[in-house]
């Protein structure tokens, strides 16, 4: 995990521009649970930013706060300098589009129709002109179809334009979600685990796709558990652990950070007497201060950490 080469990310990182998305002090509480705790994040134009963290760290919740699906308990999200209204459709209108971790396509619509729905905010013909079908309506509809087909071409789904979305294989459904999001002509694309369930080849292809999207001038914020994917792609990576941002930095910085490794591998179980030797052998990291108030002593550490995980 730690020994991947970094040519890709360094060679592709362009000069980053002005701040696009700025999240300040975002807090999201569900009753007693603080799923996102005081997270700051900035995405600049032309950047690919990674958001990683163990399961349940609050990554998806943070996405939902950014896109208006949740109204953050506290904090502020601005896009291009203006505060985003906490309504998903207004966020998309403003220029941020997203995909979902659990695929949420319109299953009984065709692939093309799915992408056309994505164009909703960039078209404006109303019900009257839809019924009258004047030249303006026809022009807009033709343009929408053309752009949607171009996006299907871009994502490699053109061949399947007429298929129902539910009949696509898993990997193509994920691509269709990306195409649908791109159809809203976003300035920032948020991808929630775009390669989940994909085989290595498909993952590679998705990597290429994300670079191609960035090359179109669209910034990308991506959640992913596939570290190879993240470290290949991202200009910066933020690590979320238990709702808090642990570190943020370039791939090298994050990979080298001991707290990240500790957060992922966890100290408690490897520190138990049975696994103790193995844990020390490949981890070879002394328990750090930030990972938890771990003590060198194995047994208290395990009992300490268990309730902490349950929170």
């Amino acid at each position, binding site marked *: 995990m730690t020994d991947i080469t970094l040519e890709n990310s360094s060679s592709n990182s362009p000069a980053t521009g002005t701040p696009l998305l700025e999240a300040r002090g975002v807090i999201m509480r569900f009753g007693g649970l603080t799923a996102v705790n005081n997270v700051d994040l900035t995405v600049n134009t032309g950047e690919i930013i990674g958001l990683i963290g163990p399961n349940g760290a609050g990554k998806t919740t943070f996405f939902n706060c950014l896109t208006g699906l949740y109204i953050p308990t506290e904090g502020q999200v601005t896009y291009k300098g203006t505060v985003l209204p906490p309504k*998903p459709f207004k966020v998309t209108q403003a220029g941020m589009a997203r995909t979902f971790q659990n695929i949420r396509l319109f299953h009984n619509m065709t692939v093309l129709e799915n992408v056309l729905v994505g164009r909703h905010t960039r078209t404006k013909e109303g019900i009257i002109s839809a019924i009258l079908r004047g030249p303006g309506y026809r022009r807009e509809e033709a343009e929408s179809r053309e752009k949607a087909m171009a996006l299907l071409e871009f994502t490699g789904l053109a061949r399947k334009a007429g298929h129902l979305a539910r009949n696509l294989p898993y990997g193509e459904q994920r691509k269709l979600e990306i195409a649908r999001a791109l159809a809203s002509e976003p300035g920032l694309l948020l991808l929630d685990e775009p390669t989940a369930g994909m085989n290595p080849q498909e993952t590679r292809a998705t990597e290429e796709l994300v670079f191609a999207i960035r090359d179109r001038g669209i910034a990308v914020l991506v959640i992913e558990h596939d570290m190879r994917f993240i470290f290949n792609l991202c200009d910066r990576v933020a690590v979320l652990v238990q709702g808090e941002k642990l570190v943020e930095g370039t791939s090298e910085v994050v990979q080298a950070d001991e707290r990240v490794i500790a957060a992922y591998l966890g100290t408690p179980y490897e520190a138990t007497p049975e696994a103790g030797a193995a844990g020390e052998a490949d981890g070879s990291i002394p328990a750090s201060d930030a990972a938890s108030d771990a003590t060198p002593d194995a047994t208290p550490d395990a009992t300490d950490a268990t309730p902490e995980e349950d929170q």
Partner: protein
Amino acid sequence: MTDTINTQQTPALRPALPLPEAAARGLAAVGGLATAASAFLAWTYSSAFPGDLTVNGYPGGLQWVTLVAGLLVLLYALTGYRVPGLRWLAPGGAEGATVIVAFGALATTWFTLIAIADELGGLANLASGGWVAGIASLVALLGALGLPRDGVAADADNPLKRVVGYPGKRPDLRPAPALPVAVELLIITLALALGLGIFTFGIDTSYGELFGGFLITAVFAAWALSRSGALGRLTDITSRHRVFTAVGAFVAAAIFPFTQNSDANASIGVNLLIFGATALGLNVVVGLTGLLDLGYVAFLGVGAYTGALVSGAATSSLHVTFPFWAAAITGAAVSGIFGVILGAPTLRVRGDYLAIVTLGFGEIFRIVVNNLDGVSGPNVTGGPNGIPNIPDLSIFGFNLGNAHTIGGITLGRFANYFELMLVFIAIIVLVFSRSSSSRIGRAWVAIREDETAATAMGINAFRFKLLAFALGATLAGLAGTVMAHVGFSVVPDPFVFAGPVPPNSAFLLAAVVIGGMGTVTGPLIGAALFYLLQAKLQFLQSYQLLLFGIALILFMRFRPEGLIANKQRQLEFHEDETESAAELSTAGA
């Protein structure tokens, strides 16, 4: 041993009866022929049974239906023999369809025999012809059940599909090359003429038994045509000539009153159209947008009351007389506004809550109009007496209340309204199909499919749901304005949630769901079916709601997508998959 294993692997590919194939085909063909022939024999000794089945040598009443059913069995059995010229009947394989029509013939014949025995008092009333018919139809079915299956071994858990194969997957149905345009247009014309003929026969049936037999045969025949792929071929052709088909269908419908020599059936026809138009409006809300509205009939009521109030009726509290076009627009607009007023608070809730809230609003409407009678409130609606004596419409000096003779054929009052309503249906169909295939319609369907994803794609879900509500209400209001004039008076009674007579919210919903949500033809066919059923099977009045419930349950179990499945075109987009399914089934066989 091997047998059991085979059964488990490919349950749908083994015939239901272990007969040699040649014997099975022979039995089916002979049985079908004998069933048809039996129609020429006397079935009973007494002419007391309606239709007079005592004549040897000439069929009467239900025997005509049996004749058709028997001939269908024969035709499909012969198609199985690859008789040249019959291939078009079963491009997707004849065997499953043979089973279906054989079931239909058996059901029709036995239904008749049981009706005879029941009405005349005992089996002794059956003459030899009746026994021949009963046995012949049974033989045909036994033969058909021995035929090899043409279905795919999918859905083996569905008992219906285990017997007749899987209706949706026709393994060897390839897209047919287009025929010359003239031939295709001729086929469409013939199909429409046939449709008109069948509809006219059904609505003309003068007694319930005949309608029952007709309905059984018609339903099984339609199912068989769909199962064998013939209907799919026809759909392919009509989809290449949409405008021609739509115009042709309206012309065929407009011809209907000219085939009638009394106004009684036109009365059924116009009420059917009003019901159908309202169902199409509801389809915007339920079928496209996926909002369960249980109080929808209230919008028809708003339109009807508005139409009545501005009609110039002496009993109307507004003493104004709008010309009809203005009345129609007013009715539609007021109903649309009510849609927004009701939708704005109710559409904030989703799913089950929405259903309950709309149900409540539907009842509130009826109770309010019942009470706005000048006693417990201002006199607006005339309370339980409603607004009677609504004058007939006059359009360009053409009084729809009078009979007019056109081309030697007299069109009565209801026939006039039928033609008027047909124009309205044309408008409603146009509005529905154009809005559903636009940016707006896509937004509605997206909301139906996944509201969260739809909002994440930039759709203001609340606004579009409100728009759907308003459009649906507007269309119902339009139908309501005509309804006010057709029915002479407007009273609160019909605008209930559930009742034995359409329109009511439950029947409207059933017409949409059983017809096929989100389609244009589905709700119209569903509405026609429901309306004719209750109009023709009057003797079932007290059981109607029970039967209606049973029908709904059966439909949801066996064909949840409704009669007309949306996205039928998916078949043409999935050639590759259909082909691989064909390979699979040949490999399995």
